């Protein structure tokens, strides 16, 4: 019964979305406050109905209702409760339901907290947002309905893919969706502004928190996925330039560009039409990402289903929204004239450079991702575009950004000189150069990219600190330290996020450049040396049982090679999930700040012993640590006074004039 109610609520939400797409838009056009005001309750209703529908599906998973074909295909009674819940979105249909749940939640947030927006803009934003919801409700109901019943329910389910039964991956999709869908808000604001024909500083201030929030969620989502790949897939890779990874990375790059260009709109009323275009493209890349994952046109490792019907539907959604928005952009963008005037050397031009590099980097990822498709369709060549291409074509942009970042971040608005920030940054440059050269000298004969990256990482981190410190002005140490704590959170957010970029670069280049690998047949009780560690296979327990799997688990001692003191005993595992018929590996990892010791267990060998792979991975955790720091910087910036005060102040302003006739 609850299932039917959930299904019904979903259909009802679809109807409300159609209403909200049309009525407030017409109301804004005709200047009817009553029509525009319908958007708020409609947005709330859409969210409540979708949330109920989602809760109904979750209930079906938790109670293992095997009359639902989706539950049969993705669950099992023996599965732990946590994974019964995360199994709701561990599949195509359920994840789409989560997608629209977040979409309607964000729409409702505009209705709840967007009281400071001009009424016509708010009505139009909600209408555009709802049109996106209409498309996705239709997609779910017509091609991917999660509420389909089976005529004869089986006794038990087929279990969730074992690799998805993991905390890292369980929460990776929701964060990514929060990011993708957050960009739909920027899109709605951009299209609404084009329809209004007006973009001003207030618009920039409204669109930036949404973009920033979306970017934070994307950062966390991508970080989680990468961390999961690192510890779960059994060889410690953290980024594969896989089409689906790229699908999440492209919106990240564009939203990073967007949140920088929105600053220029907010502070200087320039770069307006470019910012609008970025907002449209950012959501476009989110849709392309969805298309890549669901259609199977690009053979990818985590395509949910190779279903052409679904692919065509998403392609239609993409065509309608991108085509429509870009057409509107072409017609209206000319009207958005820039106001701010700035000289060639200024923070504005620094941010233009940032946008240029991020946008072109995103384009490089895009063309590399779809090139196999283009080559096959138009040139009759079957080829692959893999990590070596992306490493070669993408890395220069990262280095370009890294060189420019500290300098541009310290330039003042309007008119600047290069000399002043450069003088302040001398310590950062010297330190970066010294550490880079030292790294190069210690590891002579190896790749030159790693020392370069290390030097740039130091340059960025020290540069970010320098930026903060110079903001405290002149005076004695105590006074400056006091002012440091009172700096606006936006300043702190900027410095922290930029430092995070440095940390991630540092982790990536050291991990890829200087890891030590050892592959051998290890015999029980025979110790051997890898790097600065002594490794000994103590034994293997071959008959372990988990809740829903069988396992072989090794005990591997890791000792300090010089002193022989035990550091850790690792337990790498090989598991087999009999219901899904799938093996997985669980690496044994001794994590640390300076290095991870990473051990995986292989096959038993004919002549006795086990195949054992051991890696020493330097600074591995810095890759994800940097991502967390970036996200933290975003949160600091998001909590800045001007966003909180702006919302409150506009509410106060409205009170004396009373609530418009509703």
């Amino acid at each position: 019964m609850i299932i039917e109610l959930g299904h019904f609520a979903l259909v009802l939400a679809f109807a409300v979305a159609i209403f909200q797409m049309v009525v407030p838009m017409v109301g804004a056009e005709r200047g009817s406050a009553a029509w525009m005001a319908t958007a708020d309750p409609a947005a709330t209703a859409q969210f409540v109905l979708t949330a109920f529908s989602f809760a109904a599906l979750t209930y079906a998973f938790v109670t293992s209702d095997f009359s639902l074909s989706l539950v049969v295909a993705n669950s099992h009674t023996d599965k732990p409760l946590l994974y019964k819940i995360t199994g709701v979105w561990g599949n195509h249909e359920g994840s789409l339901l989560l997608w629209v749940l977040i979409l309607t939640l964000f729409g409702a947030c505009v209705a709840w907290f967007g009281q400071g927006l001009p009424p016509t803009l708010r009505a139009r934003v909600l209408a555009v947002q709802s049109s996106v919801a209409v498309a996705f409700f239709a997609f779910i109901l017509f091609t991917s309905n999660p509420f389909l019943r089976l005529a004869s329910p089986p006794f038990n389910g087929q279990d969730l893919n074992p690799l998805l039964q993991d905390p890292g991956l369980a929460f990776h999709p929701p964060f990514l969706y929060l990011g993708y869908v957050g960009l739909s808000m920027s899109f709605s604001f951009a299209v609404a502004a084009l329809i209004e024909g007006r973009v001003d500083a207030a618009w920039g201030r409204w669109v930036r928190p949404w973009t920033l929030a979306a970017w934070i969620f994307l950062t966390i989502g991508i970080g989680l996925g990468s961390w999961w790949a690192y510890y779960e897939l059994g060889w410690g890779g953290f980024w594969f330039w896989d089409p689906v990874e790229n699908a999440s990375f492209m919106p990240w790059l564009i939203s990073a560009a967007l949140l920088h260009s929105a600053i220029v709109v907010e502070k200087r009323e320039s770069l307006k039409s470019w910012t609008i275009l970025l907002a449209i493209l950012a959501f476009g890349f989110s849709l392309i990402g969805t298309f890549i994952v669901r259609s199977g046109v690009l053979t990818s490792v985590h395509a949910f289903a190779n279903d052409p019907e679904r692919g065509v539907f998403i392609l239609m959604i993409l065509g309608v929204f991108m085509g429509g928005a870009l057409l509107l952009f072409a017609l209206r963008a000319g009207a958005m004239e820039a106001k701010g005037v700035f000289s060639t050397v200024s923070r504005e031009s620094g941010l233009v450079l940032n946008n240029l590099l991020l946008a072109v980097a995103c384009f490089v990822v895009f063309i590399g991702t779809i090139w196999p498709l283009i080559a096959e369709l138009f040139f009759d060549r079957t080829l692959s575009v893999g990590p070596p291409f992306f490493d070669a074509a993408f890395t220069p942009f990262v280095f370009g950004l890294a060189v420019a970042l500290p300098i541009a971040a310290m330039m003042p608005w309007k008119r600047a000189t290069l000399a002043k920030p450069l003088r302040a940054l001398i310590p950062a440059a010297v330190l970066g150069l010294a550490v880079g050269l030292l790294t190069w000298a210690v590891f002579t004969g190896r790749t030159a990219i790693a020392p370069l990256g290390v030097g740039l990482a130091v340059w960025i981190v020290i540069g970010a600190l320098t930026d903060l410190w110079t903001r405290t002005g002149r005076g004695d140490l105590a006074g400056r330290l006091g002012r440091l704590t009172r700096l606006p959170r936006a300043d702190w957010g900027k410095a922290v996020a930029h430092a995070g970029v440095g940390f991630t670069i540092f982790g990536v280049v050291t991990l890829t450049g200087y890891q030590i690998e050892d592959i051998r047949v290890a015999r029980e009780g025979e110790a051997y040396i890898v790097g600065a560690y002594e490794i000994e296979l103590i034994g293997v327990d071959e008959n372990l049982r988990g809740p829903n799997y069988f396992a072989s688990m090794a005990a591997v001692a890791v000792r300090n090679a010089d002193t022989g003191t035990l550091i850790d005993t690792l337990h790498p595992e090989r598991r087999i999930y009999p219901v899904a018929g799938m093996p997985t590996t669980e690496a044994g990892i001794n994590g640390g700040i300076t290095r991870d010791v990473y051990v995986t267990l292989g096959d038993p060998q004919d002549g006795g012993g086990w195949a054992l792979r051991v890696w020493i991975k330097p600074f591995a955790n810095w890759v994800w640590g940097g991502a967390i720091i970036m996200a933290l910087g975003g949160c600091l910036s998001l909590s800045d006074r001007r966003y909180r005060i702006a919302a409150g102040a506009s509410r106060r302003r409205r009170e004396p004039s009373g609530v418009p006739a509703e």
Partner: protein
Amino acid sequence: MRWLVVFLVAGFLAATPALAVQPDEVLADPVLEERAREISSGLRCLVCRNESIDESHAELARDLRLLVRERLIAGDTNAEAIDYIVARYGEFVLLRPTFDGSSIVLWLAGPLLLLLGLGLSVGYVRGRARAAAPAEAGLSAQEQSRLEAILGEDHHHR
């Protein structure tokens, strides 16, 4: 992130997961082994999705890894060993597309767009900088003298 790979691979291996590079594959000569690893990380596993033979657990990847090592022992250079594999399996195995024919577009697309974007950006920034200039230099002689008069007055008041 690549559960489907593992899933597909599982089909080939029936039940047991294996390590990518097996201990018995490793060559005694560390220089040759290093070259073999370098080559195999640039070759695609044909039965997997977007995985190099160096990372893959599949049987075919193992065969290819052994083939690469055979060629190196036979005295091939890296390029010759790669050509040998490409001649048998097509350019699909190359994870790094060659710089020829239509693929030149792929390689040059980024740099060209960067140049174009640089041109547009410089044009835009110059335009913004010039937008300031007329306002400053746009004072006529009359306005200039009036401005001086006002400024002069101001001085007198002080």
